[in-house]
């Protein structure tokens, strides 16, 4: 190969075609390296943005902490007021924002890629709604609280995912089929939640309402640890499966032709995605539109099929930024983060509907 490098420069002789193939391979390798580099740079920039936003939401806002104070608090120093706010409120809250963002971002992108449709995120097809309906049911009918509600949310999300999957599976899993079945489920669950809320007393209803918009206001270390533990298992699983996702994205037939066991792989991906969405919802409620927004944003950032890791980072940045804004937009009031992400999601949904229709396929 080393001798042919020079021969390849001259367009004559028999060695030319062999070295041309070699140089083409090298050019491809270089192109791949360049793509990976540019993606790493963008992922790095996102990670940096997440770190900065994390610092901003811990240090600034309704209660400002200086950097030296912050580190001395971490070191164990007791600063009246500040210690409590940083350790019991701000830190777990920022951590929850990161975790919930990663969970929703990856879950949304798994579903959107698998079903080849940006509308197919778990919040649109009713999986997140299944989790919150189940949580509200537990609160209103059974007076559940704390971990029991989270458990109900996870069970509800997975239950609805399974129901959608099995209903849509009969007669092939075309992308739109699953989405339409999911939207129908979401509508039924919506009606159920509304019914339950009319039956609940005011205080319970207010508590239940958090489960319908998504909020980080009641973040605690316990919740963050629970969610973190779940993600420690789910995120690596999703990253390993993302290889199959890349192939399923080519269509069932093409994937099967490449040796992917389509049904098993898809079921594994749906299960992982549904778990990610359900545990995130169980921790913070269905933070509106985050699952739905991350994939398209990541796609715009890299100009190609987004990686799950990148979508997770976008989610972390999105939730951190939205939560900080929601907490500080109106002085004295801490809005639920879902109000803000929901407001952000609506125009993007419209824009996607228009651009998807124009190109005739999921962008």
């Amino acid at each position: 190969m080393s001798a042919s490098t020079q021969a390849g420069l001259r367009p004559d002789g028999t060695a030319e075609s062999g070295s041309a193939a070699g140089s083409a391979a090298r050019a491809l390798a270089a192109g791949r390296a360049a793509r990976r580099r540019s993606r790493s740079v963008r992922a790095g920039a996102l990670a940096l943005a997440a770190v900065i936003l994390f610092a901003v939401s811990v240090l600034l806002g309704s209660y400002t902490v200086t950097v030296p104070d912050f580190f001395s608090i971490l070191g164990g120093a007791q600063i009246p007021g500040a210690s409590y706010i940083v350790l019991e409120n701000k830190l777990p809250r920022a951590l929850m924002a990161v975790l919930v963002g990663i969970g929703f971002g990856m879950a949304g992108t798994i579903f959107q890629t698998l079903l080849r449709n940006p509308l197919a995120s778990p919040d649109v097809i009713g999986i997140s709604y299944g989790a919150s309906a189940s949580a509200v049911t537990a609160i209103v009918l059974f007076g559940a609280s704390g971990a029991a509600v989270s458990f109900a949310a996870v069970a509800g999300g997975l239950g609805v995912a399974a129901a959608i999957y099995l209903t849509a599976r009969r007669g092939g899993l075309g992308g739109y089929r699953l989405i339409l079945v999911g939207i129908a489920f979401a509508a039924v669950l919506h009606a159920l939640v509304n019914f339950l809320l009319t039956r609940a007393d005011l205080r319970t209803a207010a508590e239940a309402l958090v489960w319908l918009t998504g909020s980080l206001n009641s973040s605690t270390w316990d919740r963050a640890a629970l969610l973190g533990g779940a993600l420690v298992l789910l995120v690596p699983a999703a990253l390993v499966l993302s290889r199959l996702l890349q192939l399923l994205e080519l269509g069932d037939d093409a994937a099967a032709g490449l040796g992917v066991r389509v049904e098993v792989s898809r079921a594994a991906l749906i299960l992982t995605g549904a778990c990610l969405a359900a545990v995130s919802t169980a921790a913070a409620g269905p933070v509106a539109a985050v699952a739905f927004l991350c994939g398209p944003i990541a796609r715009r950032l890299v100009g190609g099929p987004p990686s799950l890791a990148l979508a997770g980072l976008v989610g972390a940045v999105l939730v951190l930024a939205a939560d900080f804004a929601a907490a500080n937009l109106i002085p004295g009031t801490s809005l639920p983060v879902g109000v803000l992400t929901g407001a952000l999601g609506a125009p993007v949904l419209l824009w996607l509907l228009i651009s998807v229709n124009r190109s005739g396929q999921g962008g």
Partner: protein
Amino acid sequence: MADTPREPSTLEARSITLGYDERKVVDGLTVALPPGRVSVIVGANGSGKSTLLRGLARLLKPSGGSVLLDGQDIRSLPSRAVARTIGLLPQAPVPPGGITVAELVGRGRYPHQGWFRRWTPGDDAAVAEALRVTDTLAFADRSVDELSGGQRQRVWIALALAQQTDILLLDEPTTFLDVAHQIEVLDLITDLNRGSGTTVAMVLHDLNLAARYAHHLIVLKDGRLAAQGPPAAVVTPRLVHEVFGLRCTVIADPVAGTPLVVPIGRHHTASVPAGAGAGAAS
């Protein structure tokens, strides 16, 4: 791809029955692909052409009979091992938005990679070769979305080539292409067959292109084998009427010498040669 395996793989269907739900589309069909040759499956709409190809590519589970790859039931073989022997171009595939040509073709390397074995220089060489053969090297870093229909189809063929398989199955590789691009794609497939001895089976709609490019024609009617063999022996006015319900005359293609079907409709039949519709009339 340069070193063709000594013994080409064989693929055959033994009294295979295929269908969707309760509906039988292919019924007890036995057919073997001649190794190292180009087979073309033709038939009227709904005759089971694509279904047969999907069955051969193990995309459909037969409700009866079996598909044998090198004499072994294809369903008993690991899916990834099969993908190292059989490449597939599905009907009208849709690329993921924004993906580059090199990335898309690179996914053809999956059957050669393990869960933890990542990209190797060998993979780059295979992709480069696939792009070179299909004349798409110049687009390597372009987005597939930007390409024309003919270029895109060549890229999908490159994806199947990057798989480096003995057998290549193509489901209507010329649909949605204008006539010049149809010829371009079929010439490319012929190059592959001649250059590396790849066994090719494809579904085509155009009977005349099928007759020109096939060594072996497989003619289906209502899910059963109506005829098979070299085009010159198979394509007759009688068969065309039987299978397509079309009266026609068959002349020698002035360019290729292969059979050329000239349809006889109800209009514009100024100079129907004597005895032309004979097969049909009988």
